[in-house]
């Protein structure tokens, strides 16, 4: 991500970054270290705790020709900015008859666990998938974290780019940067399989991959799809996979009801002949409760790869 930010700031003078904690490594891990020193505090702007005004300002700057990146170090605090995101940024293209676009990238960090509790833990990507006029991106791989960030900033539309701190220790040897057109990016098969399709995004993709490996030991071949771009959703890769395997589990780090996992199952249900399905579709999500603080509760709260394995085994061996 830091490479992505650095690339954008270097190449595009219209890019600037605004948000809380940008002059301190405290809030955003290593993902933005020393960008303020390298590119100046005029382009990497730490702000007062005014999520609403800052997000609105980023939207307004986009309408005035800039390519701003708004950073919310915790998604929970971003809820103060919902008007700027949902009423303003998402609507601008439609409301202006396609003549003006709020090309702002809003980076929201999911920062959970560590006994932080209900207001320091939420993964609210599903909310934004519900809103026409937003693109929603959730990288899992290290290269996507960089390349989809760049694609988000360059696409000209408002993008909610959501990354998960639980992925920050992952490593990958990166290829040189190639600018991608976000419009052409979508779900990818990241592990082939024949018995069951596991669909996930962000950190849940890691759970799916771990589960696929464990399932392999039980002679179950799982195909893993990393959604990458949640909205607008291109369903074809998912549909092709489920047509092949006949089984689907949607894994989501958010809540179940009206959530992204529901959308995945709906897309499959609407498009695939039920005769091709060998079991009912399942989802693995958070229990429908706010995040707890107590360590023992936290342990049962967050889904694990074993939960995915159990669900997959039930579907295949029923």
């Amino acid at each position, binding site marked *: 991500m830091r490479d992505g930010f650095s690339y954008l700031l270097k190449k595009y003078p219209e890019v600037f970054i605004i948000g809380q904690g940008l002059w301190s490594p405290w809030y955003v891990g290593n993902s933005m270290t020393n960008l303020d020193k390298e590119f100046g505090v005029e382009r990497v702007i730490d702000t007062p705790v005014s999520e609403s005004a800052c997000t609105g300002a980023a939207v*307004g700057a986009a309408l005035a020709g800039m390519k701003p990146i708004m950073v919310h170090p915790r998604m929970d605090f971003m809820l103060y900015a919902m008007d700027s995101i949902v009423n303003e940024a998402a609507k601008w293209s439609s409301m202006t008859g396609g003549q003006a*676009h709020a090309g702002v990238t809003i980076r929201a960090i999911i920062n959970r666990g560590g006994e932080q509790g209900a207001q320091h833990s939420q993964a609210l990507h599903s909310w934004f998938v519900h809103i*026409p006029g937003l693109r929603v991106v959730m990288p899992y791989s290290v290269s996507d974290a960089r390349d989809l960030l760049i694609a988000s900033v360059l696409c000209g539309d408002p993008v909610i780019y959501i990354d998960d701190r639980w992925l920050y220790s992952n490593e990958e040897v990166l290829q040189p940067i190639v600018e991608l057109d976000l419009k052409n990016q979508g779900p990818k098969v990241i592990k082939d399989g024949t018995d069951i399709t596991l669909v996930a995004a962000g950190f849940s993709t890691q759970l799916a991959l771990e589960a696929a490996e464990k399932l392999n030991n039980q002679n179950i071949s799982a195909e893993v799809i990393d959604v990458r771009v949640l909205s607008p959703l291109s369903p074809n890769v998912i549909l092709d996979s489920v047509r092949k395997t006949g089984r689907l589990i949607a894994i989501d780090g958010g809540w179940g009801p009206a959530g992204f996992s529901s959308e995945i199952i709906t897309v499959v249900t609407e498009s695939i002949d039920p005769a091709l399905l060998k079991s009912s579709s399942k989802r693995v999500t958070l229990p429908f409760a706010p995040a707890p603080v107590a360590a023992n509760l936290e342990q049962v709260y967050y889904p694990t790869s074993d939960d995915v394995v159990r669900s997959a085994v039930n579907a295949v061996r029923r």
Partner: protein
Amino acid sequence: MDDFKDLDTNSKELSTINFDEKLEVSAVEKNELIADFSSMLTIRVVEQKLAQMRKNGLIGGPVHLGAGQEAIAVGISKFLRKSDRIFSGHRSHTHLLALGAEPRKLFAEVLGRNTGFTKGAGGSMHLWDGDNGFLGAVPIVAGTVSLAVGAALASRLQGKNDIAVAYFGDGAMEEGVVHESMNLARQLNSPVLFVCENNLFSSHMHISQRQPLNSVLRFAKANDIYSKIIDGNNITRIKQVAEKMIKIARDTYSPVFIEAITYRHYGHVDWREDLDVGVNRSSEDLKLWKSRDPIERLKSSLIASKIVQASELEKIRIEIDLQIDHAWDTATNDPKADINSLIADVLKR
């Protein structure tokens, strides 16, 4: 309590305004005065036309009319450039038309026609006109105030001397984001002109029922922003203040704040006067404020100072009436919105 209120400079400033004073026109060029008169009257006639057509049922959606408030936008717009970045709220027709935008396009927009500013997508409440630097108006109260701060910040980052303008009402001062926005603009040296059109009403409620003071100037002072309260129905006074404030914003990348006291002739929405639903909105008040009409005040000052004859202004009125009638008739025959735009315009093509 009264003793303490007496100490408050804000309420003092409001009480020093003479809303019935004669306009100082002698030092202004005749052409400029005539232009001001014509701009204000054009907007008035447009608003009256919209009121009438909404009442007749020819306009399908709500219109929030700015009749009575024309002087503010006309005065401010004299000092704006096409490259400035203007934002507004639900009562925005005056702000857009004062920039020289075509009435026919506004009519077409309100009628949902493909020839409107946004091809019928925005209607009265979501106006946009890129050609005139009008970057957008929305009906969420205070929805664009923070956007204006960002557009002003962008001007500084782009090394330009353009300013942003945020028009909003006294009701918007009750939204938290306005206070965040003023603090942010001051802290980030963003050249934004905040214009609070204080027409004393938020929908049906008088400001005295919503705020401890009838003036909102205290909020600008709290954020260390240059501010001025003015009679919003006095075009010459507005221009004096706007010129000075806009120069400060342009030259120093500072936010500035104007509170303009005014009154709307129509009710909150559509053609009615809202005497029935408005709390503290009496026919006496309406009559009093109509006697302070910004157009009539300019007109009577012009005639009293013998700058123009009444017949000359009457001729202008007739011409404007004909132009606006023609604009309306043209717009009603314009093509409807494009069906494909519904989905195609959601994201950038």
